[in-house]
């Protein structure tokens, strides 16, 4: 008997391979790259979204999404698709690139459980999911059931593991492919959903016009405390593994990077982009590793090799900085959602370690103590929409989850009806209510979410190679959903540039570093910068452009944060005492959402020399562009119902864009820094 058991184990082991390392070549699906007419060696700004869920994500399907990856790519190119609640979703202007990123974890399973003609629907325990999104069950009144499925049922049935004597469980452990160990997981369903995602991306990819990436979300978290560690994995090309590495394979992000490193050795390049650090309770930019060990040079290099970018703004909040972290930044109270992601009931997420500005400081402090800098990343925005379609406009907003936040009542911008208020489960795991003169509002957290964001990428042309290379070198910027464009250069002679030179951009590329790059110290020379921002023609005019500088003291690594306004609208001058522009007088009419059209600038452009520079201090510089104030989505929702805006949330916002930083590196301080040693590694990956 014992022998038999061992034989079974050995047979199990040798008869299976790890499908995460088995590649499929999809290069035949789409047509090959030809010349693209918009090639520009001075680079064009391309806008896109690298974070979109479809029906293959377990939560998207539970909350009513039936949109496929094909639908998502059609939406991004300007076609109309339907929201789970039945209304039309259409983007105001097509995007240049888009990536569907469904949760790898149980990918494709819930939609298959729901489809009662599928094999997966016959698995034990999934009956509650049968025909979940049938007609007649797609109304707001299905919300409580859906929450129950999401909160309890999923957790319970996923935890239903096969018994120890089941050979499939042994196989799951030995391959390894742990999801097989679940009673409700079906490998074929899973990999065919993944193959469909890849196929859709290949078919929609249209070099020169519209770029897609095969991608997925690695949805992991800390093992205690629900610290969000989610990241999206974006594949560069069309060689794709049979199945994605998921949190069931390992919840430690280091194992994700190891897998990506392994694939890279096989010639398959990818990057991972973390998001919602704001809801990570400080875990995303922790100064220790996942296992609580000190960060090392090797760790920093591995992280930067795999994660050159961070998604710093999206619907579930903006992670620039928190008012508690940046008390002197009067624009810091923007897009703040400080609950842990997916916590139920909602749990406070401590800000330190959760915001990118803080992380830039922490990275330099780690570097100061010779541990390498694991946080030398560039910035992008994305939506994280779970309906296949990103909601980027304040005046056309459907939040992101589907049925539960698809109505103004559901997302807390208008009062609930009496019936709704009485039906909501309150207290404990439920939802709190805010009573006002106008009525009773639900506090689900959705009321603090935003119509954000987009990724801006400076690339030569709209192709996978060109965009991916730009993301690798961090020549990217993040916006809150609008399409303002921002260029940023820095160097010792940048202030010599002639702002009126018609070849300004070419000259800037020739004599300066651009966003995502570095300035290496040269004696006592003082760095200067060129910032150039252009408004979104569909948005409001620009109010100001700022440079945010963070430095750490050479003697004790203590941080200093200063924000300089460097260009003001309407020719106004920066006050040298406060570093701020005077008020340009732009206002919003809260009753109609009309805003001042004649105040503000179509573009802002300036060079700036750091007035408080010390050549021995490490520093980072990044740009923040601010639009004039406009109505927040919640105000639009209220106006459409003939109501006043909800009193306890912001009624206006300032749309904004952030560039990736440029880092200043003092002499002799960075000889082992990851960014430099990575460049030699990178050279190999880029052939």
């Amino acid at each position: 008997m014992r022998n038999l058991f061992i034989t079974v184990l050995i047979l199990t082991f040798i008869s299976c391979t790890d499908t995460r390392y088995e590649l499929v070549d999809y290069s035949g699906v789409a047509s090959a790259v030809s010349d693209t007419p918009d090639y520009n060696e001075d680079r064009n700004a391309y806008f896109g979204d690298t974070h979109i869920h479809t029906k293959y994500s377990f939560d998207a399907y539970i909350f009513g999404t039936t949109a496929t990856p094909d639908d998502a790519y059609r939406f991004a190119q300007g076609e109309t698709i339907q929201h789970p609640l039945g209304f039309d979703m259409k983007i105001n202007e097509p995007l240049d690139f888009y990536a569907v990123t469904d949760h790898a974890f149980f990918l494709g399973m819930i939609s298959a459980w729901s489809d009662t003609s599928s094999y997966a629907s016959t698995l034990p325990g999934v009956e509650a999911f049968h025909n979940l999104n049938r007609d007649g069950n797609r109304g707001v009144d299905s919300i409580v059931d859906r929450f129950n499925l999401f909160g309890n049922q999923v957790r319970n049935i996923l935890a239903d593991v096969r018994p120890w004597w089941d050979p499939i469980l042994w196989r799951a452990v030995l391959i390894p492919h742990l999801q097989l160990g679940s009673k409700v997981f079906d490998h074929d369903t899973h990999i065919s959903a993944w193959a469909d995602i890849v196929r859709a991306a290949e078919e929609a990819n249209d070099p020169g016009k519209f770029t897609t990436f095969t991608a997925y979300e690695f949805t992991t978290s800390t093992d205690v405390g629900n610290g969000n560690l989610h990241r999206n994995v974006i594949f560069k090309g069309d060689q794709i593994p049979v199945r994605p590495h998921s949190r069931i394979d390992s919840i430690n992000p280091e194992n994700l990077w190891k897998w990506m490193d392994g694939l890279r050795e096989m010639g398959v390049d990818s990057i991972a982009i973390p998001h919602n650090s704001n809801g990570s309770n400080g875990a995303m930019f922790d100064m220790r590793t996942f296992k609580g060990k000190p960060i090392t040079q090797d760790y920093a290099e591995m992280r930067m090799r795999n994660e050159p970018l961070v998604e710093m703004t999206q619907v579930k909040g903006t992670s620039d900085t928190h008012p508690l972290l940046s008390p002197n930044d009067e624009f810091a109270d923007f897009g703040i959602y400080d609950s842990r992601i997916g916590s139920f009931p909602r749990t406070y997420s401590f800000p330190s370690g959760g915001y990118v500005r803080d992380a830039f400081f922490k990275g330099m402090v780690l570097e100061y103590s010779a541990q390498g800098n694991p946080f030398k990343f560039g910035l992008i925005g994305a939506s994280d929409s779970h309906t296949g379609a990103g909601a980027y406009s304040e005046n056309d907003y459907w939040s992101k989850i589907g049925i539960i936040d698809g109505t103004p009542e559901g997302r807390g911008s208008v009062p609930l009806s009496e019936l709704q208020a009485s039906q909501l489960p309150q207290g404990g795991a439920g939802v709190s209510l805010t009573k006002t003169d106008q009525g009773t509002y639900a506090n689900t957290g959705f009321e603090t979410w935003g119509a954000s964001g987009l990724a801006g990428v400076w690339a030569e042309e709209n192709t996978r190679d060109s965009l991916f290379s730009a993301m690798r070198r961090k020549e990217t910027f993040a916006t809150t959903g609008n399409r303002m464009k921002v260029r940023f250069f820095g160097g010792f002679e940048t202030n010599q540039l002639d702002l009126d030179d018609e070849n300004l951009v070419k000259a800037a590329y020739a004599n300066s570093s651009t966003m995502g790059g570095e300035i290496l110290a040269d004696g006592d020379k003082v760095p200067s910068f060129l910032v150039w921002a252009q408004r979104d023609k569909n948005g409001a005019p620009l109010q100001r452009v700022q440079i945010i500088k963070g430095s750490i003291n050479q003697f004790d690594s203590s941080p200093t944060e200063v924000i300089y306004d460097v260009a003001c609208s309407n020719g106004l001058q920066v006050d040298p005492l406060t570093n701020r522009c005077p008020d340009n007088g732009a206002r919003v009419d809260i009753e109609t959402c009309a805003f001042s059209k004649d105040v503000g600038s179509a573009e802002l452009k300036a060079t700036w020399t750091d007035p408080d520079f010390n050549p021995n201090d490490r520093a980072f510089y990044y740009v923040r562009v601010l639009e004039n104030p406009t109505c927040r989505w919640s105000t639009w929702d209220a106006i459409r119902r003939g109501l006043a805006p909800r009193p306890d949330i912001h009624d206006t916002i300032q749309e904004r864009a952030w560039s990736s930083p440029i880092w200043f590196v003092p002499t002799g301080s960075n000889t082992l820094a990851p960014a430099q040693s990575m460049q030699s590694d990178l050279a190999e990956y880029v052939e």
Partner: protein
Amino acid sequence: MSRKLILFLGIGLSIFLVDLFFNPPNEEKTIYITNEEVIALINTWSLQMAREPNNDEIRSIIDSLVEEEILYREALRLGLDSEDRIIKRRLAQKITFLKQETISTEPEIKELEVFYEKTKDSYLLPKSFSFTHIYFAENKGGDLKATQAKLDLKDNKSVSNADPFLLGKNFSNRSLLDIKRDFGEAFATAFLDLSLNNWEGPIKSTYGSHLVKILDTREEYMPTFEEVISQVKVDFLLKQRDKQIKEFVDDLKTDYQVIISPSFTQ
């Protein structure tokens, strides 16, 4: 009379015998287990358990196959399959898969050509412009400067007070849609009336005033079949898959008379 009776009985008897010969009794109650079926099941079993079954296990595989077959037939006999949506959907799915598989993967060039002719419009390249521009920023009195600059250009004087444009100076092969995205709607609309190789304007964009010189236009262009053949092939195969299934269903529809409850036909 009696001859007729004998003849009647004789014919009856022969019909009975013929029937007996071709349809032996209890056909409905006979279960044949073929080699292929058993081998297929053994293979599935070994795939799941990672070893060959022993004799006992093979016996139990066959037993459960027999039981399944008996229950299946009894269910059929009771008509349990007739109104079951899962079974209906599964069978419908099976037949569409079958149909999908019979579709040939390599289309003939001829077929592709015909397809291209029919769907030509989707390959049309819109009219595009290659142009250069001189930009005067809105906040620096762009309007006046642009008007002055145009006069200077007419007098063959050079323009020295222009501003750089964030996206550059020269643009090649841009469609009106592209132009609209970079400069705004009004600017793109103005393009339709501009002449070739002349400094035109000032034209207003979201950002300021521009003098524009169109260097080249490419008329709306219909790529030849050869130029887009790979794209045509992908589109063709996708269409073909859907079409054949639809045709198959439509074809069968003619054999059926469909009656829908009158309350749903309005």
